[in-house]
């Protein structure tokens, strides 16, 4: 396996939190070591580090963050005295990097992704792509210009039950797909603890998801996974959207909404309904795909197919677990 092949496999590993299960046969000579750098060693970045370190030959050659405690956390994960950088430009100036992970707040994605691509590195960037449409196009342009690999870290897209579900849907097993209902329901404040809450700068740094300057709120941070999957199911991007939401329960100074309900219309007359709430977790994170002959319900652990009554019961199971 060469480094180019690695990028594809490692990216799949990070996105789906799964690893390929055959041929773990990368040579272990130092020349085949893959040196990664990471910009943003927060909770998501730390989880990505653990996942990438399950790929043979991967080593972290640089940790970049602006919050000092993240360096100790990152070094604990790598298990070694990994070089640290306070500025992403310093990290990218390091000569021994093959690829870069960008797991910073959404508003910083385009700056960091484009800089990493232009430094000649392949990039694994956390979702969503960027905060504004202009920034998204700038990333697309940078990928085309540099010819480097780039992948957005969308959850579960490589999980076997998601791939198998897509295969069955595309094979017509549940008929013509008309609706996708997607939920990300949790019962917590979506707020992370801040050691010193009187430090307002630190509060905004740690809880960046709650402030519009940095975050697209629940739709960008949670809905992006489901929206992209619906795009795969429908085979296109949506053409219109309506939605509502508000800061209705967690009135704690946040700027992004604590509940959203959004309806997307697709060109072929299909609909995605996405709901995110923070006051009840019954439905958890799941996607329900409704077709004329049946339904697929995808969770974080599996996918269950249900079939409509008009399908002959004597011939086909009414429920299948993938």
């Amino acid at each position: 396996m060469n480094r180019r092949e690695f990028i594809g496999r490692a990216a799949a590993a990070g996105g789906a939190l799964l690893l390929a299960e055959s041929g773990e046969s990368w040579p272990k000579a130092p020349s085949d070591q893959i040196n990664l750098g990471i910009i943003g060693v927060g909770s998501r970045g730390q989880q990505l580090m653990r996942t990438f370190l399950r790929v043979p030959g991967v080593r972290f050659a640089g940790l970049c963050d602006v919050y000092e405690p993240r360096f100790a956390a990152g070094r604990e994960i790598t298990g070694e005295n990994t070089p640290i950088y306070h500025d992403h430009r310093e990290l990218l100036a390091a000569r021994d990097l093959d690829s870069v992970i960008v797991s910073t707040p959404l508003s910083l994605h385009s700056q960091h992704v484009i800089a990493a691509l232009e430094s000649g590195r392949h990039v694994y960037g956390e979702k969503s792509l960027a905060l504004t449409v202009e920034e998204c196009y700038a990333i697309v342009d940078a990928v085309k210009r540099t010819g480097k690999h780039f992948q957005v870290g969308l959850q579960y897209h490589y999980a076997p039950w998601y791939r198998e579900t897509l295969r069955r849907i595309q094979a017509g097993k549940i008929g013509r797909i008309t609706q996708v209902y997607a939920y990300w329901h949790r019962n917590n404040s979506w707020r992370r603890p801040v050691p010193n809450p009187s430090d307002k700068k630190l509060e905004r740094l740690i809880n960046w998801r709650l402030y519009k300057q940095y975050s697209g709120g629940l739709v960008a941070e949670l809905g992006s996974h489901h929206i992209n999957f619906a795009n795969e199911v429908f085979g296109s991007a949506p053409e219109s959207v309506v939605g509502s939401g508000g800061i209705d329960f967690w009135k704690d100074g946040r700027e992004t909404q604590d509940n959203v309900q959004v309806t997307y219309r697709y060109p072929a007359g299909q609909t995605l309904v996405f709901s995110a709430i923070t006051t009840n977790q019954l439905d958890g994170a799941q996607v329900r795909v409704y077709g004329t002959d049946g339904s697929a319900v995808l969770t974080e652990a599996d996918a269950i197919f249900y079939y409509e009554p008009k399908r002959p019961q004597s011939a086909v199971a009414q429920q299948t677990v993938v």
Partner: protein
Amino acid sequence: MSNPQKAKDLIEVKSPDELSVQSRNAMGTVFTIYLYARDGGQASASLEAAFEEIERLEEALSDYRATSELSRINRLAARQAVTTDPEVFALLQRSLAYSRRSAGAFDVTVGPLMRAWGFFRGKGRYPTDRELRRARESVGSEKVDLDPAARTVRFAAPGVELDLGAIGKGYAVDRAVKVLREAGVKAALVDAGSSTLYAMNAPPGKSGWTVHVPMPGDRSQTVSTVTLRNESLSTSGSYEKFFQLDGHRYCHVMDPRNGVPVQGVLQATLIAPDSTTTDALSNAMFVMGPEAGRKLLATVPGARGLWILGEPGAQRLVQWQWPDCAGDGNERTLAAKREKGKGQKTG
């Protein structure tokens, strides 16, 4: 399971600190976190972060979840060396080190023996000689090869499987405590299924967290009451789970060294500075019994141990450096104190 309401009644609450309590299912048991925070906002965010850490570790270490890192290792390691992340690798190293230190009494490869005895189905049966022989061929920490340079795991025999059930909960408790410390929480008690807990700092105005070790078979009775501060306590017991065959009472704790369930030990409790240690070594204590177990505890800084031996109705207690017992190696017939529902319980 701990009873938050009773605990709240018995712990003095001083403004502005308040006791917050939350329980969630994880790792096949119920985790409960009691904490004193600066305010409700810090409490809820800290609880969420701590439970998120526990959930992260369940996703990595569960042998029930097909998507876990441990399951991936179990699927592949008999065929090839499997690279894993430093955290999982370090926990496997620590597990094998405990196996060596306990001369095999603690063993994360014991799964095939448990299955042969029918324990995974919640019952028990005597395995055939062939079943026992085959199971033992797949059991033994020496059959797990760890290569620190490549960070790989490889099984030396087919059928080997890793089950971190006797150490993973303790590790999750330690990690949750780390999260709470980093969040600036003043005092907390993290309890995994009332079998492994860590007491972080002390409730306001107290010298520590009061913990009751219950009597095997009657949790309303207390064997010992201890005050813990920045220490862990873990209890291995199997009083509720046992089966009887041909006049023998077999518990659901396996002695990996001879392939037969432990007999004559009802409960083993260990206090030590961290929960990963108490979880693993309370299990080793149970298997080893007091004679060999005390030699093991002598090698663990800060360790204090308590065994309850015998049969129901004829229990006796043996201790090592235990806080409320005089002298070492003290053995006495058990006369449990009736102290119903006081403070946090363990068992």
